[in-house]
């Protein structure tokens, strides 16, 4: 293949992956606490690539090197349910799962039959300093902005808000984030817990529509470039080599 077609094919592949990220974002516009993924384009330089003999530049190709998760705040929806919590600002709820500690921005919690505060999937919400938060039935629950859960005058526990670098977390599905190997968690600072509210998704909106159009158009341009490359090849084969009589 010639250089034009190779570069164009690499670009087309990257746009397809962009569309896959965008499709997942748009599918999750109603997922509570969802954080949108964005692509990060980079130039791929093969270790074996030989430099251009005239310019000395290495052969490079556009690829999506990695994605990053946009930590921007989602909209806060009023639900009125006393066990719905949203975090305004920095921090994630810590949840004890069978696979270890996981983190979520989706504060749609409920009570287990034993009275333990859990996620909608039934995993216990971790209290600060370890352990779970146990509530008595029939007594109004109040949560202050620092995450302290009170029933009447009695303190039932404090929600454990964790904070880490967005680069150090991996999405796991079920609204969970997991820490990547070697990442570290620190206590959240500056995030306020709001009761009776849920955080919506930060994906969607007009920006997504613009991205969708731009991905499609870029793809179209690359496809044109590839056609031109093909056309040049065809002419080289059919016309340059033609022997005039």
């Amino acid at each position, binding site marked *: 293949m010639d250089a034009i077609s190779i570069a164009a094919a690499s670009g087309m592949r990257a746009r397809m992956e962009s569309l896959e990220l965008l499709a997942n974002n*748009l599918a999750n516009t109603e997922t509570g606490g969802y954080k949108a993924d964005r692509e990060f384009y980079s130039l791929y330089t093969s270790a074996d690539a030989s430099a251009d003999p005239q310019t000395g530049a290495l052969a490079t190709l556009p690829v999506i090197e990695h994605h990053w998760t946009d930590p921007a705040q989602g909209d806060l929806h009023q639900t009125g349910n006393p066990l719905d919590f949203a975090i305004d600002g920095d921090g994630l709820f810590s949840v004890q799962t069978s696979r270890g500690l996981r983190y979520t921005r989706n504060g749609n919690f409920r009570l287990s039959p034993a009275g333990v505060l859990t996620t909608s999937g039934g995993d216990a919400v971790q209290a600060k300093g370890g352990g779970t938060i146990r509530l008595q*039935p029939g007594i109004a629950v109040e949560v202050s902005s620092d995450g302290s859960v009170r029933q009447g005058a009695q303190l039932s526990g404090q929600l454990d808000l964790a904070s880490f670098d967005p680069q150090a977390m991996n999405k796991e599905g079920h609204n969970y984030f997991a820490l990547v190997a070697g990442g570290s968690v620190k206590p959240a600072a500056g995030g306020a817990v709001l009761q009776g509210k849920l955080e919506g998704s930060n994906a969607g909106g007009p920006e997504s529509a613009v991205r969708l159009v731009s991905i499609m158009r870029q793809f179209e341009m690359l496809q044109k470039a590839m056609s031109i490359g093909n056309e040049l090849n065809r002419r080289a084969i059919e016309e340059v080599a033609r022997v005039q009589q």
Partner: protein
Amino acid sequence: MIRALYSAASGMTAQQLNIDNIANNLANANSAGYKSRRAQFQDLLYQNMVTPGSSAGQSTVVPTGLQLGLGTRASSNEIIFQQGDFAATNNPLDMVIQGRGFFQIKQASGQTAYTRAGSFHLDNTGSLVTSDGDQLQPQITIPPTAQAISIATDGTVTYTLPGQAQAQNAGQITLANFQNPAGLNSLGRSLYLPTDASGDATIGTPGGTEGIGTLQQGYLEQSNVSVVDEFINLITSQRAYEANSKVVKAADDMYQQVNNLTR
């Protein structure tokens, strides 16, 4: 590319389910004692294209990998037990529960179900029954000659007989309370059944300290569906559906261009 198509399809399915849920809420905007439900969604599993920490070259490692999500799914639609508005009916057998409790209803099958709809009637034996004829538990019987039926806030039912000044006691209404009402199973006809998630019912008398609530005679609890909120949900849900269908179109167009590369 096929991933984009399936992610968008999962988004469309989820929004369809959201609209089904909104339609049911709106259809029940006037059902006494109806509690609205709210659909919740989760993201699906992620596919690791480039694993974070893998080596990118001889001396560099990839700091964060490339993960592609595979769409969304509905995780639950929980019942929102917010108190509905009270409407005065002046019917002495209508009551509302001001609090968390539930009336206990004995179904025809003998199984006990629970409801917030406090619209009761008398059957041919004088027992308090729901509009479907299921008996209120514990059973309350009122003789046909009774006048001035009164239900106190603590659930004591009394009536007077003609020519008598002394009120007669007809029984005591008790209420059920659940650890986690959002985990109840809807049976239709405004009835709920307990599940493992809701916990077993604990029975108490109205006005007790358990937060079960008090009774108010002559009122009915309206549905807690907020029509404005449901319409807003309907609009956002419909637009999200549309956005996902656009992704299907875009993926299809891009696929078509790939196929047209070779002529």
